[in-house]
């Protein structure tokens, strides 16, 4: 599974993307956040602040409860600020 980070989250984590193989018990976006937080303490810190880390699964915005079944790419980023 490919993980991507954007904006200041990318800077904090220190990588733009990485390939990971989460264990089978990681089945949701929330679970993936926790699992990645172990690897990247600064990602865990950011996730601890409510509403700050948003996600997309296969390029669709996704809530914490979203299932990862079949997911090939998950992205994490702060709230968007375009336009």
């Amino acid at each position: 599974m490919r993980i991507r980070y954007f904006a200041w989250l990318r800077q904090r984590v220190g990588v733009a993307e990485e390939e990971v193989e989460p264990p089978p018990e990681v089945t949701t976006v929330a679970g993936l956040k926790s699992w990645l937080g172990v690897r990247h303490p600064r990602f865990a810190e950011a996730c601890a602040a409510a509403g700050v880390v948003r996600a997309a699964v296969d390029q669709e915005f996704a809530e914490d409860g979203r299932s990862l079944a079949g997911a090939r790419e998950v992205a994490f980023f702060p709230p968007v600020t375009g336009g």
Partner: protein
Amino acid sequence: MTVRIAPAPFEPARELETFARGRVDVGGIASFVGLVRGEHAGARVLAMTLEHYPGMTERQLERIAAEARARWPLQDLLIVHRVGRMLPGEPIVLVATASAHRAAALEACAFLIDWLKTRAPFWKLEETPAGERWVEARAEDDAAAARWQRAAE
């Protein structure tokens, strides 16, 4: 219907000229151009860089454009969104809508820019004399986007 990510500076006037050319079927064309401001949140802005999520960005823009066409009788619409580094005064985004009805063109234009700001994966990084800073999302942008939600969802 055209949706485009522009990695280099673009000229809204030229885009609008092309968009309007030869149209005898529309009553009006509404447009909105967002520009880089030379000052923001109390600091001088020397430059701004827009990061985005290639792939997802195009997808979201297409989706937002399709939503506008579903809601208003539009003859055509255009979205051009810059990415990369730009200077104060440079255009960030252009939205244009063509319709037989001016209210439809204007409302769709407002809708598009509101949804672009809250539903497309862009992030602004400002360079100020004190260093770089990421622009924070604003509650009022969420509120502006939410007013379109009640109508259809």
